[in-house]
């Protein structure tokens, strides 16, 4: 590049440079994490609000965001907490129980081809049964306590956990299994020290899916029989034609799922950072 001596040229250069910095700054802002989705989200809300007012859409068809916000006021905060806790409790107990059952079964499936061939079809049948359809049957069979709701949550979260964990346990490099065998190490250590750590990325991807499924399971159970919980609240609200209230319940459910999802993601980042997809540092 040649340097120009005329002041005109240098001033135009400076201008160009300034423009460049400005454009770079704009681009950086544009790429700031979360900015784009947040803008889109706000835009959608605005369009939603505007169309509801402009076209006078009846609330029972689609309440405007501002009316949904009003729906939160329909019951006291303490009642909200009550409902959220009822749903969260069932979802978490079911989720944890599901993990406790799924992991040992995954170990069995990974260890024995015969067992895998014997059990896997049954798992597929269970998974193919619509949970919504089985839920009333389970409630009749197990009564109206937390137990049937936990069972329903288990049923819906179980399958992805088993399948993904089994795949993870089988994904261990064969050399490490040979190393383990050449050391004549106890089989339990092959599982705990090699296979399970190798399965961690697989387990976590299933844990993330399952935690949102757990919320769905709890809500489905509440639809069938409950006197508390967000699912119950939504059903109650719609039966009273309080649609904005039902929408408020829906928003709470979405937030609950998102928070649980983020907690699982965070747990992996904190305790198993090596299991995350490579980000060159």
């Amino acid at each position: 590049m040649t340097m120009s001596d005329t002041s005109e040229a240098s001033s135009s250069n400076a201008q160009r440079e300034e423009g460049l910095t400005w454009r770079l700054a704009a681009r950086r802002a544009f790429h700031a994490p979360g900015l784009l989705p947040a803008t889109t989200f706000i835009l959608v809300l605005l369009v939603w609000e505007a169309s509801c007012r402009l076209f006078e859409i009846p609330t029972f068809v689609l309440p405007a965001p501002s009316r949904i916000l009003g729906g939160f006021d329909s019951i006291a905060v303490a009642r909200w907490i009550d409902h959220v806790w009822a749903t969260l409790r069932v979802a978490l107990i079911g989720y944890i129980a599901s993990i406790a059952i799924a992991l040992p079964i995954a170990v069995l499936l990974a260890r024995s081809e015969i067992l895998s061939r014997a059990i896997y079809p049954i798992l597929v049948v269970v998974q193919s049964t619509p949970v919504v359809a089985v839920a009333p049957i389970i409630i009749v069979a197990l009564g109206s306590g937390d137990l049937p709701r936990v069972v329903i949550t288990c049923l819906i979260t179980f399958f992805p956990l088993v399948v993904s964990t089994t795949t993870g346990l089988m994904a261990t490099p064969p050399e490490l299994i040979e190393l383990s065998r050449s050391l004549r190490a106890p089989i339990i250590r092959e599982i705990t020290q090699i296979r399970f750590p190798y399965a961690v990325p697989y387990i976590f991807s299933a844990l993330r899916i399952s935690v949102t499924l757990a919320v769905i399971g709890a809500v489905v159970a509440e639809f069938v029989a409950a006197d508390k919980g967000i699912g119950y609240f939504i059903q109650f609200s719609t039966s009273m034609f309080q649609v904005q209230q039902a929408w408020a319940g829906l928003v709470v459910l979405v937030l609950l799922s998102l928070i649980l999802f983020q907690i699982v993601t965070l747990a992996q980042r904190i305790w198993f950072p090596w299991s995350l997809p490579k980000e060159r540092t």
Partner: protein
Amino acid sequence: MASGPAAIRFSGVGQVFATGAGALEALRGVETSIARHEFVAVLGPSGCGKSTLLRLVAGLLRPTRGAVEVFDLKVTEPRDDIGIVFQKPTLLPWANVEDNIVFPLRHKTGRVDAQDRERARALLAKVGLAGFEERLPAELSGGMQQRVGIARALLMNPDILLMDEPFSALDALTREEMGFELLRIWEAQPKTVLFITHSISEAVLLADRVLVMSERPGRVIEDLAIEIDRPRGIETSNDKVMHDYVGHLRSLLLKRAA
């Protein structure tokens, strides 16, 4: 060159695998023995059963026919005095370098003491990676990872070192460097080495003896003593005698392939 009793002996070893497509004969009538502290390289085309040979010595496989003996004892299960280095380093990605080296002990016995860790650090220094104890495998180059793999195999101070194409995933320069490194370690602390490789020059450069295997079913078709003085180094690669050996083995392998 080495003397004394045989460390490894193959007598009439045949290996047949049952596969989905029927029986696969990997080895047939393998007959050879390897002396204590001898460095033996095994050369041969892909799929000729070189790795099977190694797994038989490791006790990971039982021969279909014949017997494999290690120090005059028939191999029926894995032994404690054998270390294995694989083609890929296969380190544990969640464990740092030091934990990776002591892993065989932790895996076998369930515990590791300060003395073992001391030994691991000494080994790490021996393979030229002092100061890398706390690093994770992902932070190391391929060559460095394989050095850790070698240190891991040496942890139990094995009499026999089995190496399954240990340098084949490395670039040419690193590969040569690692070969000399291995010789240095071997000369300082002699061990019986069974070294599987695809590279003719690597085999000649490193080994006391080169066994050439036929295509499947694998047999030993040439047993060539490499009479080049030790210690060997970069000058050896340019040695005329070395070129003669390499030329002889290459024409042998090419003739079989044709």
